């Protein structure tokens, strides 16, 4: 729809304000002066296609949305930024997230262009009441994790690649460098569907936990347009619920018990059974060799390698499952803190994560694959293909080479 200069200016202002940017903050990515931004917003200066394209990117909008009959002043990411003044002040975070969202939107465009229906991929939702207490939140998180494992047919097995799993459930997943206190975020928006971002600067094993944590938000909190997981809000009930989900999803109770039993551990040191023969009961007692059931750090290393968790999170898991008591937990944690766990893991060739694919690679591969297919079907131009490839770090020369190789040049 054609707009007057004033109408377009008003929409640009609304989009800027909705994501908490000042005119000065928008001026830099738009490569304009603050005065020029003010003039554009007031309708006193025209905006060129080049400038509008940069502005749209900076405010995380599809450029088409500016000309839609109904202009939505809010989107998921801008709502998130508005909800947290501190976030809005972090220019680098802003840039990184809006960049990710732009790629997510292009992915959605490609899928729509190629007739890929994500609706059938969309994962389950669990309608839960708001937890009344932390205990309640933990129970809810664990219950959903068990049900979701059952729904996915995972049994008690480890989940090898969380990022793959999310993608298979229709969730867009990307790893982006975020401030250290943010582990991840979940966005739900019509233009990007469900989009999960985890912090790329965190170690792989922590990212695994973050993927699982954000997956909980996707399953349970999808009615919210967004959720951000930061260290400061870890005691919020929905964050506690998501953490309980992640712990149970990554290391299911049943699977953990079986694994520990397979190591010959985890039984009580003294077991008593009464066998009733119809008239009297015969007492049977079994005592384990003293110390034989004590879980050691090398057991923890094997457990974490199996489930792809960190040794410290596994220690808490074992404690919560009452497989170790508090003194044992303290002893093992002290050893872990002293570096013994790493030495043992190296000796056993049992790193904390069994699969350590570079985060975001799956997303990149899928994105490039769809872009190539769209080009092959002549849905996008060659220059657009090169532009899309550049968004995920692929050089124009590499695109040209591959097009020649596959006979698409």
């Amino acid at each position, binding site marked *: *729809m*054609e*707009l007057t200069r004033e109408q377009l200016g008003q929409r640009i202002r609304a989009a800027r304000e909705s994501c908490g940017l000042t005119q000065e903050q928008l001026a830099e990515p738009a490569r304009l002066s603050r005065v020029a931004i003010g003039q554009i917003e007031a309708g006193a200066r025209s*905006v*060129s296609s*080049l400038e509008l394209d940069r502005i749209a990117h900076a405010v995380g909008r599809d450029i088409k949305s500016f000309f839609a009959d109904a202009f939505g002043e809010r989107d998921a990411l801008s709502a998130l930024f508005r909800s947290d003044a501190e976030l809005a002040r972090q220019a680098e975070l802003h840039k990184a997230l809006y960049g990710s969202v732009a790629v997510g939107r292009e992915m959605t465009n490609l899928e729509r262009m190629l007739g890929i229906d994500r609706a059938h991929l969309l994962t389950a939702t669990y309608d839960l009441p708001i937890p009344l207490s932390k205990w309640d939140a933990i129970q809810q998180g664990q219950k959903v994790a068990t049900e979701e494992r059952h729904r996915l047919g995972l049994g008690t097995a480890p989940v090898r690649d969380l990022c793959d799993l999310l993608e298979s459930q229709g969730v867009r997943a990307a790893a982006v460098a975020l401030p250290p206190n943010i582990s991840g975020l979940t966005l739900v928006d019509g233009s990007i569907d469900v989009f999960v971002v985890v912090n790329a600067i965190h170690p792989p094993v922590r990212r695994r936990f973050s993927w699982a944590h954000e997956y909980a938000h996707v399953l349970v909190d999808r009615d919210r347009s967004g959720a951000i997981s930061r260290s400061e809000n870890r005691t919020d009930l929905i964050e506690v619920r998501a953490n309980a989900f992640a712990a149970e999803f990554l290391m299911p109770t049943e699977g953990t018990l079986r694994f520990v039993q397979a190591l010959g551990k985890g039984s009580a040191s003294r077991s008593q059974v009464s066998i009733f023969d119809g008239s009297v009961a015969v007492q049977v007692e079994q005592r384990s060799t003293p110390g034989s059931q004590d879980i050691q750090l090398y057991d923890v290393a094997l457990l974490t390698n199996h489930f792809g968790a960190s040794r410290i999170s596994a220690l808490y898991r074992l404690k919560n499952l009452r497989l170790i008591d508090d003194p044992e937990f303290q002893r093992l944690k002290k050893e872990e803190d002293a570096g013994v766990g790493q030495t043992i893991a190296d000796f056993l060739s049992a790193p904390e994560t069994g699969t350590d694919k570079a985060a975001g690679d799956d997303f990149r591969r899928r994105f490039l694959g769809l872009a190539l297919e769209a080009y092959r079907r*002549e849905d996008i*131009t060659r220059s657009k293909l090169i*532009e899309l490839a550049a968004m995920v770090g692929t050089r124009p020369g590499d695109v040209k080479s591959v097009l*020649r190789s596959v006979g698409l040049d």
Partner: protein
Amino acid sequence: MTQEPTIIIITDANIIINLFRIGQLSLFGSLPPYRFHVPSDLVVEILDSAQQKALRNCIEAGQLEEIAVDMPAALPLFAELRGTMSRGEAAYLALAATGGFYIASDEKKQFRRKATQLIGEARILGTEFLLLEAIRRDQMTIRDADQFKDILAANKRATVQLIR
């Protein structure tokens, strides 16, 4: 003698690159009544430094005019085309479609189809057209044009065929 009316042609990057490769960027300024324009969106897409410099020189010499696409009618079309085209392509096609201009482009496939749909086949000109116009206006000999054709053919992106 009546002067021919000016015909505005919006040029694509591949034409600029082709003329750069044969050292004939100045042709843009020597084929009246054609007047060549290039949108700023496209200028920033030329990344090769030598090509960029030559293009800047060409603009500064007034052979090629750099323009901003800011007409209210062009912007919504630009936005729509962005989903399937690069910024530069979307800009010059939107400009040509809403301004009634010609385009110079050797692009095929999706771009050609969309351009034909928006402005019609007759308003799409290519490198071969420019070389023929140069011959017609004694700016170039047939022999020169043949040599240029060989240079472009040697390049992987060249698809020029001179029509005799």
